[in-house]
């Protein structure tokens, strides 16, 4: 029996439930001081002065930092990290000063009292399709073409028997991990040590080294346990720079734990989108044209262009296809990664439009998708390394009881509840990145594997131990995984659903190499091997299209009197290559689906354009799903799928696909229940019944 494929419990589970697991602000440090940021109360302006003398006179205050006195930092590509390097205010909530004090309370109070003089300038924060300053970015995240075009879309649309031309909108949403961003930073001579909550300590350490002009081996970032990130901790954010800067200025360790409210301004969010989809098809539902045009926002600090239309490039066959992204550069906080950037909002629009097309053609929505299944990747022309979308749809249909579904809208009632069902497809790229790892046999007979992977709550530590155990041919309890420290062999961040796919490659390689060396005898001083997978990843055959697929099914109940939407069933079936640990995988899928439910029904960051800030900046105002919203009828399944073209273990990655398509499945179900097509997320009760 192999360890891979078994549902081992998280190795750090007992530490977490007993409180022994330390998070970034739980590391003790002698002479600890505390920082608290002062945020810009305006969306655009110039910082003139800060009353530093008055603030310094307050009890416990050690330092006041702002543009006028902050140490200079070296240039980096992400200008969000250039904390206090400019007098320019680029968005409401931007850090414009900070107070360092003996206690958290003193720092917070002094920051509240600090007077920052700002020359306010007119700001512009409103994303609208009719803006005359929309522009096409050079590329969209991370490195895709902004626009693509194949065939003659207009001609195919004109020749189509059935067309759909609809515009969908999605609200700005914020990642909101349970643990807000947090750091404890200390300078040990010329060395910087930071305990930090992030998704990739290697990248954070590199950013800090560059900013502070240090050799990379002078910076250590420890991220042993992380309470979620969902993309918002994928790279360094201003908070960790501020903590390190403050520690240097006061000559003491400094702790900075952001509050929930800070999550809504300085650490990223998902851009709102406006998406026009045009589909042209024959009466048989065969697509002739697909057009997907996206409008979204970025900030003036750093361009972030969400790749919203990329899923549309490879999902379905069509004679002609066009995708386009346009950005508005606004005086807003910088948007960034949030779980399945691109696919989550883009597949909402595409899969909702497919449902509208199915209705227009009088076809079952699953049959419509099956008919438009492409033989090869429509964009690249490459074969898929594996593509089991149809199998997911059929397996899900069987499990969900889709087969005898009555397609008519508003035709099922349970008392005052209108009941409906919906389906949507999901996809996410299966990618790997180079990583390095070291494996050694220890004197205690156990094996230690070092890799700077990050366990952000996913179970990465456990899963990689399973991979190492099988490669070494030993039981998993003889493996000790060391992760979450930038001094370990460098590896990619936990993001893009690339963590396990990439790390397992390096861990497997190191463990196999160690095993081979052990077979030749173990020397007196023990045995250790180091590997990296840069050459292996580079040698991947580029002539395969690599993606995970899935299908989501939803049953909703809509109160006929109030418009309240409740999801009574949510079911996902995935084809994601090899699943290493069914227990932790299931948690990833359910978590993604729950986040998709939130995107569909409840999550919405509301901007007041007069002030330029998101006003509902706490968990009372920003509604993530509660347990009662998710209920018990949420199910995740996966198909046996072997894909030898993605990486040696055949792992496609599972962190993001669970959210993709869920908003469309729910929206389609709301239409089926009510006959009302709400085309802007979230689907609030007032949109369902009262407009």
């Amino acid at each position, binding site marked *: 029996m192999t360890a891979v494929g078994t549902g081992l419990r998280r190795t750090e589970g007992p530490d977490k439930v007993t409180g022994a697991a330390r998070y970034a602000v739980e590391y003790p440090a002698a002479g600890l001081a505390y920082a608290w940021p002062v945020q810009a109360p305006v969306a655009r302006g110039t910082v003139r002065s800060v009353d530093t003398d008055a603030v310094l006179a307050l009890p416990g205050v050690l330092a006041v930092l702002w543009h006028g006195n902050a140490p200079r930092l070296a240039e980096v590509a992400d200008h969000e990290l250039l904390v206090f390097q400019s007098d320019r205010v680029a968005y409401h909530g931007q850090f414009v000063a900070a107070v360092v004090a003996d206690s958290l309370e003193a720092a917070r109070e002094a920051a509240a009292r600090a007077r920052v003089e700002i020359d306010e300038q007119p700001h512009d924060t409103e994303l609208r399709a009719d803006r005359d300053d929309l522009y096409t970015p050079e590329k969209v995240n991370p490195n895709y073409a902004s626009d693509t075009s194949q065939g003659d879309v207009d001609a195919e649309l004109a020749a189509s028997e059935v067309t759909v031309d609809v515009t969908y909108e999605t609200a700005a949403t914020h990642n909101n991990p349970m643990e807000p961003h947090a750091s404890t930073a200390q300078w040990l001579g010329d060395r910087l040590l930071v305990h930090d909550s992030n998704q990739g300590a290697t990248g954070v350490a590199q950013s800090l080294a560059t900013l502070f002009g240090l050799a990379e081996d002078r910076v250590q970032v420890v991220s042993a346990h992380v309470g979620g990130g969902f993309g918002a901790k994928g790279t360094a954010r201003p908070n960790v720079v501020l903590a390190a800067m403050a520690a240097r200025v006061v000559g003491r360790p400094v702790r900075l734990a952001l509050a929930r409210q800070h999550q809504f301004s300085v650490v990223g969010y998902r851009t709102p989108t406006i998406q026009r989809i045009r589909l042209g098809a024959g009466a048989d539902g065969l697509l002739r044209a697909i057009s997907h045009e996206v409008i979204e926002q970025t900030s003036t600090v750093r361009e972030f262009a969400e790749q919203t239309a990329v899923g549309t490039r490879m999902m379905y066959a069509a004679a002609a296809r066009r995708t386009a992204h346009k950005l508005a550069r606004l005086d807003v906080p910088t948007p960034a990664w949030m779980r399945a950037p691109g696919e989550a909002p883009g597949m909402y629009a595409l899969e909702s439009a497919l449902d509208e097309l199915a209705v227009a053609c009088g076809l079952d929505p699953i049959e419509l998708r099956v008919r438009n299944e492409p033989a090869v990747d429509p964009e690249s022309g490459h074969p898929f390394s594996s593509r089991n979308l149809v199998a997911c749809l059929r397996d899900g249909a069987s499990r969900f009881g889709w087969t005898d579904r009555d397609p008519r809208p508003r035709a099922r009632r349970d008392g005052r509840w209108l009941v409906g069902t919906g389906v949507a497809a999901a996809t996410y790229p299966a990618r790997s990145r180079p990583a390095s790892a070291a494996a050694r046999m220890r004197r205690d007979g156990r094996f230690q594997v070092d890799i700077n992977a990050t366990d952000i709550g996913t179970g990465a530590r456990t899963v990689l131990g399973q991979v190492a155990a099988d490669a070494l041919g030993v039981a998993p309890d003889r493996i000790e995984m060391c992760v979450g420290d930038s001094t370990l062999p460098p590896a990619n961040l936990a993001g893009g659903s690339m963590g396990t796919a990439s790390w397992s490659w390096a861990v497997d390689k190191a463990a196999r190499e160690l095993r081979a060396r052990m077979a030749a005898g173990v020397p007196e001083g023990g045995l250790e091997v180091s590997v990296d997978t840069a050459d292996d990843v580079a040698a991947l055959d580029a002539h395969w299209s690599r993606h995970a697929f899935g299908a989501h099914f939803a049953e909703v109940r809509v109160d006929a009197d109030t418009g309240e939407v409740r999801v009574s069933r949510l079911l996902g079936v995935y084809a994601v290559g090899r699943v290493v640990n069914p227990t932790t995988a299931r948690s990833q899928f359910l978590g993604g689906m729950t986040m998709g439910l939130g995107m569909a029904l409840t999550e919405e960051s509301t901007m007041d354009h007069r002030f330029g800030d998101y006003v*509902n900046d706490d968990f009372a105002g920003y509604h993530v799903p509660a347990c009662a*919203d998710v209920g018990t009828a949420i199910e995740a399944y996966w198909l046996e799928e072997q894909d030898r073209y993605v990486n040696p273990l055949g792992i496609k990655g599972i962190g993001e696909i669970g959210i993709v398509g869920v908003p469309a499945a729910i929206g389609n179900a709301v239409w089926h229940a009510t006959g009302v097509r709400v085309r802007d997320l979230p689907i609030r009760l007032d949109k369902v019944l009262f*407009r």
Partner: protein
Amino acid sequence: MRPFDYARAADPAGAVALVARPAAKYLAGGTNLVDLMKLGVETPALLVDVTRLLPTGIEESADGLRIGAGARNSDVAVDRRVRAGWPVLSQALLAGASGQLRNVATIGGNLLQRTRCRYFQDVTKPCNKRVPGTGCPAIAGAHRDLGILGTSEHCVATHPSDLAVALAALDATVHLHEAAPVPLTDLYPLPGDTPQVETVLPPGALITAVSLPPLGLPSRYRKVRDRASYAFAVASIAAALDVVDGTVRDVRIAWGGVAPRPWRATEAERVLRGGPATEAAFRAAADAELAAARPLPDNAFKVPLVRNLTAAVLAELAGVDR
């Protein structure tokens, strides 16, 4: 956080004496007050902890029910007498907040919680309730969750309590330490041009108990919200209805989430009393009350929502088939 003093009084008289000091406030469950202190909205110099001196008991008599102001929401919600005689009260309590918050929150404190209007809670923005005369940004801003009834051009905030909505329907009385009791429906003045005045209580008043007359008719609390749990009401209703031979003999209606106070729908009740217990009559009664509504662009949906909600709950109480 701003430094403040903390004191615990031995008895109500001691608490009243302590709270007479400058910038002093009572602290009970603290579920709202402490949040507001973190936000800088409340900046007390002294907190007078009254949790150990307030009565926590629930007493039933021929006059009805008397609930100590220090009773925890969760304890009252599950009390056998409450559930049997005043189910609307239990339902309202259980519809509020989360299990953890209900375990800490008190009956007296619940009545004095502040609006959750986003502008009230953000000290960097104007708010007539927080800083009189600075303006109300909600009227042209994020007001989707705010009031349609009893509002003014100076303030459109809603009172957030679920409990108070049930108490308004139940003709509850608020009892004070050494001061005349106040009917719940008189506790909260409308904002007019003084939205900073949120209750009729004199400075230093200490709520000691809430009493309810016997109800004796079927009752129900129904809360409409943006997620299934742990969300403030988009709109809610506390209702009790007595129907004899298809005619409404007695009815109580109070709405939450739509007004600066729990909104006792007296006009709707008047229209219904003695009339037919039909869905059409329920809708017409709601409309009679809602004629006074002054909705804003983003909360105009609350008018039809409250109409539907009222018809739905009254129909359920009347056993009317729909």
